[in-house]
């Protein structure tokens, strides 16, 4: 027999967390960085993170700013550790695959900026519902 526990719809309450000032600023920054509409980012975050992770997003982003990928400029520009281990938006495996593609492109002679831009496009694809 399968019975479901009583579950409240948490979307409104999660949105209220993201509507706070610092959270909103961070969401807009992510949206700008990945070139996704703000609403899409919000929907993704609400769907994939639980409430305490949403509350903790700005603190984690701050730590990512200070400590993520200290010795690899390409990874830092792409936000490898920022999006995987710090903000936990993408799984580590998915992010590693994207980063492998990007570093392969850099090795093949593509300028770092273009490679990172293509990597961001891949992140965007991965975030698509």
């Amino acid at each position, binding site marked *: 027999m399968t019975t479901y*526990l009583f579950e*409240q719809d*948490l979307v409104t*309450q999660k949105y*209220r967390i993201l509507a*706070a*000032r*610092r959270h909103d600023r961070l969401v807009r920054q992510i949206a700008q960085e990945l070139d996704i509409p703000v609403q899409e980012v919000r929907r993704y975050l609400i*769907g*994939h*993170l*639980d*409430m*305490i*992770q949403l*509350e*903790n997003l*700005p*603190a*984690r982003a*701050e*730590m990512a700013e200070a*400590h993520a990928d200290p010795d690899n400029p390409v990874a830092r520009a792409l936000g490898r550790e920022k999006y995987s*281990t*710090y903000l936990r938006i993408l799984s580590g495996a998915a992010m590693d695959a994207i980063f492998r593609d990007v570093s392969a492109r850099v090795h093949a002679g593509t300028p770092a900026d273009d490679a990172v831009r293509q990597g961001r496009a891949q992140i965007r694809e991965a975030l698509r519902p």
Partner: protein
Amino acid sequence: MKRVVDVNIPLGPIHPCFKEPARLKCEAKGERIIGVEVELGYMKKGIERIMKGRPWQEVMFLAERVCGICSVIHNLVFIEAMEQISGIAVPPRAARLRVIANELDRMQSHLLANFSYCYTIEHETLGMYLLDLREQVMDELERLTGARVTCAYIIPGGVRCDLRKEEAAALLASLERMEGDLRRYTGMFENGPMIALRSRGVGILTPDAAERAHAVGPTARASGIAVDCRMNHPTYRQLGFAPVTRPDRDNFARVMVRFDEVFQSIGLIRKCLTDLPNGVVRGRGVCTAGEVRYSGEAPRGELTYFIRSDEFGRIVEIQIQTPSIMNIEACCHEMIIGSDSIADVTATFISADPCIACTER
């Protein structure tokens, strides 16, 4: 987040061990916990939204009611942020009295946290001893500030009332008594073989994970990270403050760090009382416009206020980053994962000293 999992064990919102409502949905494989989803929203009052557009005189009382356990530090950090915006100086006697109030508050909060932990691992005797000791600390706090909880003792430019000489002597005497009692209770905890079985090696938080989640306070210090905002505070620097750390990273270390900090607080209060400067306790000044990010060390860790005020001292924008946000996150997504049984989940959760009212505001 809708997912299909093998076994999902919800804990809370009403649970005998939790002081406050929170719901942990533990995803288990056999007895082992492989994931936890936290459901909050039982305490969301929207304090930051209420604060917006109100004068500091009102926001001061609202700030205190972000958290009823550590109300003095919320008061202190908000007022010191306003002082920094407006350039108000604090008389030296008031600065010392603030430290005394803050450390008494820290003592009662740590004792309460350790009581909760002992109660959760079913060591009720030690828990009751600690709760009794906490009542004595509350008496001292009441003697100093006039109220047990939410005392609004700290105001811009000083403190609300002075500490008389005979009160200071009484405070010193009861610190002596409390230190003796606490030494005995700490020994009971440290040397109890059953407590060690239940606590040592449970709920490991590695320093890397603590850093990623921005864990703060005793939770981070028990993982060997020496972070403490009191190191940057001018009054504490005069008192020669150095943070307490432990390398063990488990539940036992977190509780012991709190015990050690209570002893440290007793030492700090004693140092404040022995060379308490004479003079006024209330300076003067006017709160003005400005923007600041100000941090202070709450009992649970780094508490940060982001404030923007206008020329009449009204709060235009405010956000509060409380320590419990980071600690609960580190606890639920790092410490609890891989626990051997569901019984360790509550113990580990309580060992991080979660405060849901702080987290949700």
